[in-house]
């Protein structure tokens, strides 16, 4: 069934695996599952140098490769996907053999086991399907370029399902692929992803340690993982970084036991929440993985003293983000932390407005940062895990 749904009807590739070149669009939830795919394909015997990601989203990319192939979709990040597909299909010096664009139904998450579910946004999940349409509507662009298009549905939050899902979709694309090796490759993928997350969390902890030492403010970004893509998030946080503030992201906040106990111990002991990763006190309908992490990030950000300012990014008319706007704002501001929201980001980058916003934030963080740190520190017990 997978074959008829997602294959484009070519015969199996005759090339040995080590020579296969796979292209993956650098979009949407690939921004949080990157290392899984790199390690997965490497474990299957593909050369790491032949696992190619499209470049970051840019206007140029859309213009050169996505023009005329756009889909009617109100989600800008999904819309941009056609540029990525086009780049992989038409814009590679060395042709890719496979365009691999997973339809990720659920996501691995640090909140696994503490929330109702870990689903992706349905629009984002189905992005590959609507994007594909622009490439086969009149002529099959994949077939013309001799590219196998593979877009398996994968439930990354349920690791036991993943080997079967990937094996079925890749079996006639990767020569001699067995279920067993797919399973081993999936294990390697999850391990790599976890290693990467741990390294990123360690960096966040380092940043906080430095802030604690110097009593300096830092900025936390609450956004979906793909807002790290310069073409989607417009590098707004980079402008703030240039003003002298280190930047943390909700996906990679430290989760070490000592830090969690420092921030949430009292709430757990008083019975308000059952664990540091429990968000049911503020967000009972915790189905969406990225949304859950944003809400949790708001709770953490409102507690960590050096996070004096939280930046919220949301793409144009994002239906997943909209219900979270006020809860997130209220959670963050409850501790006196500054909160600035950049909503309705889309393709137009209003340079003037952005500059004024960044300058506004800089002004207030400069004016109130130290006072906020002192006040937030006073509300937390000792010892502080970042100074010991």
């Amino acid at each position, binding site marked *: 069934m997978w074959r008829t749904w997602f294959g484009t009807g070519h015969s199996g590739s005759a090339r040995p695996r080590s020579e296969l070149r796979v292209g993956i669009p650098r979009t949407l939830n690939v921004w949080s599952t*990157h290392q899984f795919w790199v390690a997965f394909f490497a474990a299957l015997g593909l050369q790491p140098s032949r696992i190619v990601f499209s470049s970051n989203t840019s206007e140029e990319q859309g213009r050169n490769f996505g023009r*005329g192939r756009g889909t009617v979709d109100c989600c800008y990040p999904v819309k941009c996907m056609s540029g990525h597909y086009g780049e992989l299909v038409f814009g590679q010096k060395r042709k890719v053999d496979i365009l691999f664009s997973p339809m990720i139904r659920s996501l691995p998450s640090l909140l696994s086991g503490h929330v109702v579910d870990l689903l992706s946004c349905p629009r984002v999940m189905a992005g590959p399907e609507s994007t594909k349409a622009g490439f086969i509507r009149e002529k099959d662009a994949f077939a013309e370029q001799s590219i196998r298009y593979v877009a398996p549905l994968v439930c990354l939050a349920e690791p036991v399902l993943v080997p079967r899902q990937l094996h079925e979709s890749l079996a006639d694309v990767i020569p001699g692929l067995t279920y067993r090796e797919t399973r081993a490759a999936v294990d390697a993928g999850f391990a790599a992803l976890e290693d*990467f997350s741990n390294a990123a969390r360690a960096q966040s902890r380092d940043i906080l340690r430095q802030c604690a030492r110097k009593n300096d403010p830092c900025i936390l970004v609450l956004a979906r993982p793909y807002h*790290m893509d310069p073409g989607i998030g417009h590098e707004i946080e980079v402008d703030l970084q240039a003003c002298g503030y280190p930047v943390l992201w909700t996906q990679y906040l430290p989760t070490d036991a000592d830090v969690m106990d420092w921030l949430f111990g009292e709430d757990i002991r008083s019975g308000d929440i059952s664990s540091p990763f429990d968000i049911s006190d503020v967000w009972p309908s915790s189905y969406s993985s990225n949304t859950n992490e944003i809400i949790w990030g708001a709770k953490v950000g409102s507690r960590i003293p050096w996070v004096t300012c939280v930046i919220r990014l949301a793409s144009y008319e994002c239906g997943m983000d909209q219900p979270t706007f006020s809860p997130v704002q209220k959670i963050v501001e409850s501790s006196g932390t500054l909160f600035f929201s950049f909503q309705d980001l889309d393709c137009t980058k209003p340079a*003037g407005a952005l500059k004024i*916003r960044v*300058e*506004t934030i800089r002004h*207030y963080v400069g004016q109130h940062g130290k006072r906020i740190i002192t006040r937030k520190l006073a509300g937390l017990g000792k010892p502080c895990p970042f100074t010991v």
Partner: protein
Amino acid sequence: MKIAGIDVGSTTVKAVLAENDVILWQDYQRHHTRQAEKVLEFLNRMEAECGLRPGRDILFLTGSGAGFIAPLVGSKIIQEVVAVAAAVEKLHPDVRFVSEIGGEDMKTIFFTAAPGGHSKQVYMQSACSGGTGTFIEKAAKKLQIGPDELAAMRHTGLSLHKISSKCGIFAEADANTLLKSGVPVSEIIASLFDAVVCQNLATMTKGNTLAPTVLLLGGPNLFFAGLQEAWRHHLMKFWAERGVPLPEGGDAGSLIQVPEQALYYASLGCIEVGRAEAASSPTYAGRDRLRWWIDKGQHEEKAKQGGRALAGDATEMAEFRLRYGDPKRTFGLRAPSFRRRDGPPDAEQAVIIGCDLGSTTSKAVVLSQDSDILFSCYSQSRGNPIEDAQLLMRQIRGAGFHTVGALALTGYGKDLLNDILGADMAVVETVAHAEAARHFFPDVDVICDVGGCDVKIMLLRQGMVVDFRLNSQCSSGNGAFLQGVAERYGVPLEDYAERAFQAKSMPSLAMGCGVFLQSDIVNQQRKGWSCDEIMASLAAVLPVNVWVYAGQLHNLRSIGGKFILQGGTHRNLAVVKAQVDFIRKKAPEAEIFVHPYAGEAGAIGAALCARETLESGSPSRFRGFELIDALDYQSTTSKDTVCHWCACNCQRTFVDVQIPGAEGRPWSKVPAAPGWERVISGNSCPKGMVEDASELRLIKQELEEKRRERPNVADMVRDRAFRQCKATV
């Protein structure tokens, strides 16, 4: 039986009369917003010249004006895209794509072969002027190019420049900037043609591939040779890139056709559709009711349609005047520290100067150490921020102030002039406006600043600007438009409000694009609305454009309870009345105040911020009136000043200011001698502040160092997550 197809468009009326597939009569004329009169004239001529007869022949109407005329003449309405498609299917069965550009709209039709004929996809947009005929004509008018000259202008072989294709008014501004920087008019027009085609391709194709043969219809496509060239250029390039198979020997001319009858396709389509429906259609009812409507009906309708008066009834107006008539008097009592002092200034006392260096006007205020406003002044911007600042300083000095304790700048010129004037602070606009509002209203939630050329809405929480909307994509809703209309009527701006309050009722104008608002005004005028009534309605539509169209704020209750109106446009009481009515309707409990110094709020805010410098006791960096007055400068805007660091290609201006001891830039393409300091303006990012590669390296190094010192976790993701990490090998 004869059949007439009449296309009543936004700028012209086109009509064709046919009998048995033979065209007996056709004409098109501009109607100058008198659609009904032009249709009447055409019917007259058709009756006299070709024997069009009531009771026997049939009319079919299409186009934006068909709706109100059709019932008057006994005609059926045919949707315009349906009509165009019918004509194309009959006359050009091999056409796959049609673009019709009208005066105020654009349409595209895709034909794909389907069993039993063609399947059609049609798209139309008529809400925004970007990409329409008005877009080109408006800019051409500004550049003083006549219609004939415009029609002959080319696209092929000319260098193109970046012109905003999104909004007609901004395109006009872009065209102006290009003109000022010495770009030839021919290149500007070529760029406009290019922008129109790009805008059509960007917004109207929606995932469909444009396949040959292509048909270009509508006035602009027919008349502007350059526009045809732009289409051919883009489509041929597109087909080559896409490998679209072209028929043997097919050249641009045969694949992209502009038929002679390009103007009449909607009319011809009406006849085509009409032939099939003739049996079930009413016959032509004659001209009488249309003539009645022109003479009487429309005026009766005007009376019926008219909204309530902006002024409301006498009690309402009296209450309004009491509350908003003189904000200074009302608030002089509440904030005693902020009164304007009379009498000569105390020359010895150190004062605080705040300057708001805007794009159209620059304002300055002088505050005492107790925050009394001692003096305020302004100057119209002359395009050179240094000259503007000098004018302000001369006025302040002339008023008798000598000792300056602190100077703060805000507005777009703040960074540019910070060092040259020796300012103590460059305050971002949002903070300046918020400080000015909070001085009087500490618990303000929303500040609405409507200036001449921009609209800013600032939302505050905990006394801080946490969100704001800047109208940057579209010119809708700003004060310059109001001023322009008043000028056209010859009404001094000071009299605007009183004239608008005289109106007993007013027409309702459509929210949205300023370009279309202009034609809507003409349309209302034609219906008999007077200047006072139109000015009232223009004020009434401003809040809708400000909050809904530009600010995208639909729920005013959710953003707060205390609204402060600032900016020079709020000196106009008619606008204030409209704002108060609008906000009250949306948020009945809201408290609404006009800032007592609406026009100078930015400058006051900056000065208030600078109080800290004065209070800290540190000496001001102010260069002194003499030195500023004696500043000699020269500015250069040319090819050599364009920034090439990225694809934006910002057109920069180099302003060289003579400052003793400055090093100069002998190595530059635009050399500056020793003793001259260069200030670069017009760049949109910090990279543009530098001229050459070695300077850029230094800046990049600094940025990198900053980024290393202050890491961003996303950098790690961007750098490492998409390749095999060492840790995971």
